[in-house]
């Protein structure tokens, strides 16, 4: 007997699958990192004196001066910059869209401190509290009491910030 009796029968993920897959993931990660650290000795080589360039710019530190001359990498960085800007603008649009939608939804909710029983309570913006019956959905404005006009007036955003 447990409280679970009253809860739905849901079929989740099996414990065996979780355990086996977690183990495989850990082992694969260790293998990948072992492979990655095998490129070279694991210590900072960044500041060794190692003139690698020949020609007019040869000398210590010349590889910095030579710069990033890998074409595909330069291109990848440029593409990523562009993607960042495009996605950033889109995400900002989404933020404002949800911010506005949330304000509209909030305007439909009961004002803080308003009790559910008293339908005649005056809301802070002068509207009247919506009837409790038959609420439908995220943003269903009309209710069964014929106060749709009031509601429509209130649903346009409530009071300013």
């Amino acid at each position, binding site marked *: *007997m*447990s*409280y*679970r009796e009253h*809860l*739905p029968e*849901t079929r*989740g993920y*099996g414990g065996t699958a*979780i355990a086996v*897959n977690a183990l*495989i993931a850990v082992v*694969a*990660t260790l293998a*990948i*990192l072992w492979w*990655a*650290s095998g*490129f*070279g000795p*694991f210590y900072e*080589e*960044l500041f060794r004196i190692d003139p690698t360039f020949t020609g007019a710019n040869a000398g210590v530190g010349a*590889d*910095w*001066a030579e*710069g990033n*001359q*890998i074409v595909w990498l330069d291109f990848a*960085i440029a593409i*990523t*910059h562009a993607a*960042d*800007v495009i*996605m*950033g603008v889109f995400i*900002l649009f989404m*933020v404002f869209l*949800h*911010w506005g*939608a949330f*304000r*509209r*939804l*909030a305007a*439909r*909710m*009961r*004002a*803080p401190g*308003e009790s559910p029983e008293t339908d005649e309570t005056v809301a802070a913006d002068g509207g009247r509290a*919506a*009837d409790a019956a038959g*609420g*439908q*959905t*995220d*943003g269903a404005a009309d209710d069964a009491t014929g106060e749709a006009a009031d509601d429509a007036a209130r*649903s346009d955003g409530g009071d300013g*910030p």
Partner: protein
Amino acid sequence: MTQLDHGKFTRMTTTFHTLLALDVFVLFFSGYSMMFNDELWWLVGLMGGATGVVAVHRVAGAGLLVLVLFWMLMMVTTDTGRGNFREILPGRADVDAMVQDVKFLLGRAEERHPNARQFAGGTADDIPLLTYIGKGVVFIFAIELALLSISGVLIWSKSGIIELMATRTAAMAFVTFHGLLGVIMLMGVMFHIFEHGFHPAFYPVEVKAFIPRSMIPEYHADGGEEGERAEEARTGIERLELSPSWNAASTIVGALTVIGIVSVLLGSVFDEGYPVPREIVIGGGPTNLLLTVGINAGIFVLFLGLILQMYGNLLRVRWERQLESEERPPAATDGGELRE
């Protein structure tokens, strides 16, 4: 109660979500304090300076690899994982949902599209597994995490990346590329925090990702199983009381989210992190007070997300206790199944 909206994710998914969130937050804090080191100098110091912050980032990176590989395996090797795949595919309805959201914002639609609804007010079946935003999050994060993991592994050993890239500058440019990749996700996570923390019906945190569907009763306690009583049991948003602090909190965090997103976007354009900038800049980067404040605002939003997801888990624990105390079963402290 509005919890019926939330019988969506399995226990494994909710646990995974928390682990992934914690890991990604650590990666963001360590990674972007490196990339934006002049704006987030204090965060670098907090994580043990230039050496410490790299170590923290590598440890969290190893954690991310484990999580990503585990998730891929779960999605491919289990029926539940394969069964959910068509649920996350974006379709025509998702485009409609976005268009209707714009109309709803402008007051030209009375309600949000089912594929946009975070709050349904009825049973869990009334809204899809993921909103159109949720599907976008799944796809963007999947692509981002894959690319970040691959490029991150290549950067794992500095001397290794130098051998791969032929010059040191190119190696550093590749590190920069890795950092720029993460910017989309950084901005996306800020929005994600705002979206799931500040919906007026769920403020301060939506519990969908924290309370597994196995713990959500299928019907309201005061409603019948079907017919009129179940209809009465539906929760219209008009019946919910707005939290007194919602207005101020959503305005402040909304503003901080916008400032944070704009700032990291500008920062990623100016502050490339090249050890040798394309143009000589005295001081190593834009020593810009506004940008510094803005990027720190973004970090604050991320920190808030960290707190909110902890709170979501706290709510799950309370929910579990409440269920147990209502039924008073013999206590199972580990939350496991009780034997008959």
